[in-house]
């Protein structure tokens, strides 16, 4: 399979939106390059006494709207182009949610499965030692991502605090609760999607109490969205799936019972009193809301004509191909694009920064309430834009994000 350069994809998206917004070519050119990149070498003493040097990156794509924000990935196949693309994507996402933040991303080329806890700690601290001058609560705020976790964030925060000689909780988010983490992070992504779906139902005239839901993927996001749609909005969740297959019961499923079943058997399939169907069948079910929550590219030009849901809420990253997007738009399916629908996570990360600045921490309810406001506002911004320009919801989301970034750059006098 030919390798696709993810950063090229970002540039193509920019071109498409530039067309809609009629942006000047030199402005587009400015947006197409990351503003700052760090390439660092990280010598780390391994448990057996040997020294190994790891390669790391940090990309601050655009900080026109504020300090850059974005995760740190520890991945053996990490490349600078992946990090660049993801940093650009964070820029648009933060702008779309109207967070006062720019976008960034970091990565270290390493295989965490080959490293002991001590080695991981030394690597994490080495990374901070290499980039500390260029990050900070008001400069660039990393977060957990692929193969990094709250423990690694805690080590990094500690290392940064040491070099700065003071406690600096706000330098990083996704920390453990005991070190300034935010309440409500566990189901933040699903909860963000929940608020979007609730508002979308209003604009689409869908009675949620009678709405049926199918959830593809039953990991963290899939489970929580199923649970919340049922408990908070009274929807009938009638099908869920994982990599082993899908289950369906038109009378409705109990998401918690399914979760327990999965914990015991590693899969949702064979949950009692349900019918076993394929993942493909689930996507084409006659339901009101479809939540792809696991893999990329599951809705394609091939099956898009057969999608019957009225709302597609993309909790996964990139579940719909561009061709399928067009087909769904023409069919009148209301798509909640991924970088709107799954932005609850980054929003609560932002709340964590805010609370760290404040030195005062909110209850879970307060977090939810503020998240609701952010998500609702973002949804309507996208919805209105899509109507205004007569473009699909994804294009509308990009348009808003670019517009906001360009406005900030212009106000600063950069362009």
């Amino acid at each position: 399979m030919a390798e696709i350069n993810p950063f090229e994809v970002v540039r193509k998206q920019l071109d498409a939106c530039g067309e809609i917004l009629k942006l000047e070519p030199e402005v587009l050119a400015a947006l197409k390059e990351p503003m700052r990149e760090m390439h660092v070498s990280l010598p780390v003493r391994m448990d057996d006494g040997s020294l190994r040097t790891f390669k790391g990156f940090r990309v601050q794509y655009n900080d026109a709207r504020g300090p850059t924000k974005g995760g740190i990935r520890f991945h053996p196949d990490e490349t600078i182009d992946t990090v660049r693309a993801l940093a650009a994507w964070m820029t648009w996402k933060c702008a779309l949610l109207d967070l006062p933040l720019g976008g960034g991303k970091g990565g270290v080329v390493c295989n965490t499965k080959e490293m002991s806890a001590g080695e991981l700690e030394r690597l994490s601290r080495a990374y901070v030692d290499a980039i500390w001058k260029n990050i900070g609560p008001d400069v660039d705020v990393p977060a957990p991502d692929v193969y990094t976790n709250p423990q690694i964030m805690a080590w990094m925060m500690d290392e940064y605090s040491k070099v700065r000689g003071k406690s600096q909780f706000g330098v990083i988010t996704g920390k453990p609760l005991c070190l300034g983490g935010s309440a409500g992070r566990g189901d933040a992504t699903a909860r963000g999607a929940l608020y979007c779906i609730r508002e979308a139902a209003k604009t689409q005239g869908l009675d949620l109490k009678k709405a049926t839901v199918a959830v593809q993927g039953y990991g963290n996001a899939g489970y929580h969205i199923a649970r919340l749609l049922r408990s908070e909005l009274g929807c009938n969740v009638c099908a869920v799936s994982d990599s082993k297959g899908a289950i369906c019961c038109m009378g409705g499923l109990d998401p918690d019972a399914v979760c327990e079943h999965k914990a015991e058997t590693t899969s949702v399939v064979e949950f009692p009193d349900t019918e076993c169907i394929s993942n493909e069948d689930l996507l084409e079910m006659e339901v009101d809301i479809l939540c792809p929550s696991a893999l990329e590219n599951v809705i394609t030009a091939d099956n898009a004509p057969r999608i019957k849901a009225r709302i597609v809420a993309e909790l996964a990253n990139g579940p719909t191909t561009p061709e399928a997007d067009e087909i769904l738009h023409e069919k009148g399916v209301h798509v909640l694009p991924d970088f709107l629908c799954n932005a609850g996570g980054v929003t609560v990360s932002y709340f964590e920064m805010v609370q760290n600045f404040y030195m005062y921490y909110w209850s879970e309810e307060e977090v939810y309430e503020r998240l609701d406001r952010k998500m609702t506002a973002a949804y309507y911004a996208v919805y209105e834009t899509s109507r205004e320009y007569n473009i699909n919801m994804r294009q509308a989301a990009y348009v808003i994000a670019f517009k906001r970034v360009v406005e900030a750059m212009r106000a600063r006098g950069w362009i």
Partner: protein
Amino acid sequence: MFVESGIRGLDEAIQGLRLGDNVVWQVENLPDYVFFAEPFIEKAARGGRNCVYIRFAPHPPVLGPRSGLEVVEVDPVQGFDYFSREVNRIIEERGREAFYVFDNISSLAVEWATDELLANFFQVTCPYLFELDTIAYFALTRGKHSNSAIARIRDTAQVLIDVFSVEGRMYIHPLKVWDRYTPEMFLPHEVGGEEWSAVTQSGDAAAISTVAANFALGSRGSSIAPWDRVYDKLVVHCGKGEEPGEEDAELLALKEEFRRMLIGDHPEFNRLARRYLRLEDLFAIRDRLIGTGRIGGKAAGMLLARRILASASEEDGFDFSSLLEDHDSFYIGSDVFFTFLVDNDLFRLRLKLTSNSHLTYEEFEEVERRFLAGTFPPTIMEQFRNMLDYFGQAPIIVRSSSLLEDSFGNAFAGKYRSEFCANQGTPEERMEAFLKAVKLVYASAINPDALSYRRKRGLGESDEQMAILVQRVSGMPYKKYFFPCLAGVAFSKNFYAWSSRIDPERGIIRLVFGLGTRAVERVGKDYPRMIPVSNPELRPESASEVARYSQRRVDLLDLEANEFTSLPLHELLSGRDYPGLYLLVSTVSDGYPVDPVGRMVDGPPRDFLLTFNNLIKRTDFCSIMGAILSRLDAAYGLPVDIEFTANIRQDESVRVNLLQCRPLSLPGTSGPLLIPEIKPEARVLFKSNRMISGGVVRNIRFIVYIDPVAYGAVPSPELKKEIGRLVGKVNEQPQVAEGRVMMMGPGRWGSSNINLGVNVSYGDIHNAVALVEIAREEAGHVPEVSYGTHFFQDLVEDQTIYLPVYPDHPEAEFDHSFFKEAPNRLADILPGAERFQDFVLLIDVPQATGGLYAQIVADPRVQRAVCFLE
């Protein structure tokens, strides 16, 4: 029907012979036996009878060669089982109304060490001779066997005649003559002349009987069987454990003999046993032996390993004696197994089943029922009672320890049963449960799996006797349960290192909480913790996957219900008061495992994950296990695998209980391998030098080949997934499954990311004998992810050979043209699969090559493998 014995006087005395007679001559010397056997065969041969002389003893021949006599030699050195089976086969082949003379069967007791097996032989052979209307002569040396053995022989024989001499005159004294009677028949008769006269004069009779009575019922003193004799001599000479000196050749030979009787005669094992097992150890075995015979491979392996560790010097850096828990196991000797079979009329059934292959599981259930109805002799029952009294109500495990099990080259892993006895209740109830366990283990000697394993390895005819090891279950009570804190298996070499950082020479541990059954058996979706000794903290999963790949249920003994059971972890630990809990679990926080700080374990029990992280970080467990493995590996001179339990004391010190040790059976192999020289004319399909599991697979008929380039070009993910399902369907085709199938395809099989490789689950390929992951650099497919994952473990445990192949690499010698040109049989074998033909090739190798089959030889030690046509 009256049959002449060739001696008129004898015919008169006992009213002649009858078809079906087994005639036992109890003699003082061989010429006395020859005196009767010679005319018997002479007469029979002249009468055109089919005459057979069964020759096995070291004494001079009873019969010289003559026309009409067939001499068949059988070797008793190979053991009771083999010998009985051979004799049985000879009898079967000769058919009805054949006449037999056997050598003096007293020699068998010398060879097999006990009278018990001699009587067993007699008891299984005679009824068959009787059924076939033959007449057979046997001799026994008088006064050399135990009363109980003679009693059993007497019960089985139709005719038992004592032969003795008084004052130069020879007498016979018929002790048993079945179905014949005269008023004088059971009196002594003087041998001489045409007519042999019964001794009726009271004075003469008394004089003769005084001599005869002393011998009539077997031995006055000890038997000639070495079992007691050797032991007695050693005790006399060496007290209770003094080691015989180098110069004392006779005692050393006695010790050797003693060890052979208890443990067996495998040359590799002997080398180690000679070095490590002291006389004291052998005495200790005999003191705890129930019945007679050998203790079997599992028990021997355990004892040997314990001795190796105990004898380790301080240079090893470990005083193993303080780190190992003591054991107080009992052994049920292998002779007891045969006595059980013989007494309960199961021996012939077993003979039939081991020679004839196809036993269904339903049939086996019937066999099990017959075993369960069996009984043990009173002497054995008495020893069982004493043993159970000794254990009291402590839980025990009854483990198979067959002679072949755990020996060099044949692991028989999990082929025979082990039965837990919670051992609660009244003495009668405990005895009942124990007997049931023993009988189930005995029955498992002929379960269909074990039979097919034996046949596969060419062991169908070997002497396989089932000894039993009765061990105290290591552990402690918690709530109403009983289980060890830690249990598992460990290997001194690590053949599934998932990272190059891991040193395969230092071994790997599979660890579980609770009884070790979870570690040795493949239990659904439950995973033991894999700990590489060189880097104990590494695991194949990333942090967020840990929850999925951990142990969820715990095996234990329920003391109230008196049974083996398993419980969900969170239920067992709901009280959060299990001692040392902080060493065993991590708690899930934010989806990631967090290790307890100090002894504080936070979070609800549902969030407990068995990671053993603190055990690994804070205790000596891994270094102790590493030292044990390396010490045993060095002593054996071979990789070993061990089963163990371990318990942690309050001061975090660890004590290990070694349950079993055996030479490591590598995945797919049955012993050391050499890559054979490939004939120059043989066509090599590919080679691999980055191989991780080994073995030899012959005669592969089918190859499923998924073209990496075509697969990479498959446009839609749906189609890629369908290809995975198609592989599953091919796998299920009976024709394919039976013909042996090798699967080859791009990248990471079993990956959930369909772009990385063929999307299958283990169930889709479980019939494959080999799985080949093809790495084509331009297509972006890289194998190795299977390596170390649970998908890979499944392969290892099912002994499926796994090979990564780099076809673009010249060393791989990948035969591109073969795969391009071979005809595709996919659509014939799986109608409806036409549309997949561009991606999936199903090659019928002999059809494509004019009768050749694909062969794989993979040597895990040198990491080289080759697949060729032959």
